[in-house]
């Protein structure tokens, strides 16, 4: 553990961009944890000054019913991150298990899971997510489910490829000789050994999950209007941008972009950190 920390410090010291991404990520986490309690205004309360441009009183201005946009943007972090984390956790859990089963056992497992992955990939992914939410009902839980399903193939594919490679490794053979059952090998030998690669995949797809969920709520799926959520706030602001009232859409859009950008940088950085070729 200590050497891992030292290693992380070594790599971060080497890579300013990744350190910056980690800092930004920490800031987002703080916003998600305590955001709703530290903002200056109630994110849901209407105020007396609708459509006010950014000022010292309202840093990001106010929207059409006078709600403070800064408060709403900060408070929304919680919901957006919760949706993204939950859907990625779902895709990660199901995808990893399905992928290692396919890669390790081969045969029917591989054929059935491969067919499932191909079928999901036969759809344009955002369109499939729209169809799932439309059919199953317009709730936040279904947004999470749909985003999880469209991310499933990424994890299943990577896990399958990795498990396929290490299935023939010497230590698997050794475990088998030592009397381990196949399922036990799967969970104690294969799973821990593909974890680092899967963790990189998490941070690479987290940005996509946030974009996807925000896109769904932008077209009116999932999150209901008074709720503070980045996608729906941009959608609110879209009606005012033609009149030049840019701040309603711009700030939630910018923060959304920063969050995605942060995850993409983090993913690249983690990949460098876990890649053994960088270790000296």
């Amino acid at each position, binding site marked *: 553990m200590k050497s891992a920390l030292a290693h992380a410090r070594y790599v971060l010291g080497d890579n300013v961009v990744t350190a910056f991404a980690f800092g930004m990520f920490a800031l987002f986490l703080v916003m998600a944890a305590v955001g709703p309690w530290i903002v200056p205004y109630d994110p849901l309360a209407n105020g007396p000054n609708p459509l006010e441009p950014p000022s010292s009183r309202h840093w990001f201005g106010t929207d059409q019913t006078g709600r403070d946009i800064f408060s709403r943007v900060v408070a929304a972090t919680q919901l957006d991150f919760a949706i993204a984390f939950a859907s990625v956790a779902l895709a990660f859990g199901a995808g990893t298990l399905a992928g290692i089963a396919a890669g390790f056992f081969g045969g029917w497992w591989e054929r059935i899971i491969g*067919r499932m992955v*191909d*079928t999901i*990939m*036969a*759809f*344009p*992914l*955002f*369109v*499939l997510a*729209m*169809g*799932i939410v*439309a*059919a*199953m*009902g*317009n709730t936040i839980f279904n947004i999470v489910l749909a985003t999880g399903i469209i991310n499933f193939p990424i994890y299943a594919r990577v896990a399958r490829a990795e498990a396929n490679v290490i299935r023939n490794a010497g230590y698997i053979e050794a475990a088998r000789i030592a009397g381990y059952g196949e399922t036990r090998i799967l969970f104690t030998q294969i799973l821990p050994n593909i974890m680092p690669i899967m963790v990189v995949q998490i941070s690479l797809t987290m*940005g996509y999950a946030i*974009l996807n969920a*925000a*896109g769904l709520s*932008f*077209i*009116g*799926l999932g999150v209901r209007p008074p709720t503070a959520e980045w*996608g729906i706030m*941009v*959608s609110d*602001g*879209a009606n005012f*941008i*033609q*009149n*030049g009232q*840019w701040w309603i*859409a*711009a700030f939630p*859009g*910018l923060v*959304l*972009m920063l969050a*995605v*950008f942060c995850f*993409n*940088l983090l993913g690249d950085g983690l990949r460098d950190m876990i890649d053994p070729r960088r270790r000296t």
Partner: protein
Amino acid sequence: MLSMILRRLASAIPSLIGVVIVTFVLTRALPGDPAAYYAGPAATKEAIEQIRVKLGLDKGLGEQFVDYVGALARGELGNSISTGQPVAHELLTRLPASIELTLLGLIFAIGVAVPLGVFAALRPNSWVDHVCRVIATAGVSLPIFFTGLLMIYVFYFLLGIAPPPLGRIEVFYSPPTHVTGFFLVDSLLDGDLGVFLAAVKQLVLPALTLGIFALAPIARMTRASMLSALSSDFVRTARASGLGSFKVVVGYALRNALLPVVTVLGMVFSFLLGANVLVEKVFAWPGIGSYAIEALIQSDYAPVQGFVLVMAFMYVGLNLAIDVLYGVIDPRISMAT
């Protein structure tokens, strides 16, 4: 060559079967009782039963699936509740608008991304390379609906050089006579240059928005595969043989580097077709995406299911085209299989 194409066609069949099964499952996964839903809130028990029989919902799942596939084969996608029109007809009349927009966005993306990737690979760590890297990272981070709104703000509100973002043509022009459904083609067939220019003006911003979104993966892939092609033996040999640098870069390196780029196009299409929905909403574009969104808001499910099905079929078709194109660019593939 022909047998290769036929083999590719056959390989798409399992995907199509999968798509049909998934959309069938989605139509049956409606929350609550579909018959009660279609009958409306004031319906009596008998009326609900009648609709259940009419929709075939009293039959077994297997029989319902056969009915569903039969209707699909006849090109029927059900009727929209809010407009009462057949979904297949409405999708068909709106499809050209979506295709025109997506194609233009793709052409713009390829036209900018491929040269950008080539120049970045020719001069690693130069300013072109840095621009390429910034675009590749920013392109995947930008929420496409936000880019679209930004475009409207800058080019319509601030600069005033773009027309209002409301559909395919400004209100004081009448749309061209319907031949292909593509306004750019139809207006030229009419010989009406004014309408053509008006249609172009409406198309520029949404197509740019889509293009910027698709730029990133293409530029990134072009750069990476150009780098490896440029350092390969055949490029060195071509250089040593005294060929001009244009011939070496375009005729040898780029031709080989394009193979992985064509592969990445499949992923780009998946993104583009999804992004298309968001762009259509931002620019009030009357394509199939905004049709699906309008239906979603009114909880009108048949159009949404039809839309998902049409999109999936188009996507499978596009992937097929990419596969065939791949075989044409690289003859080794068709000989090997």
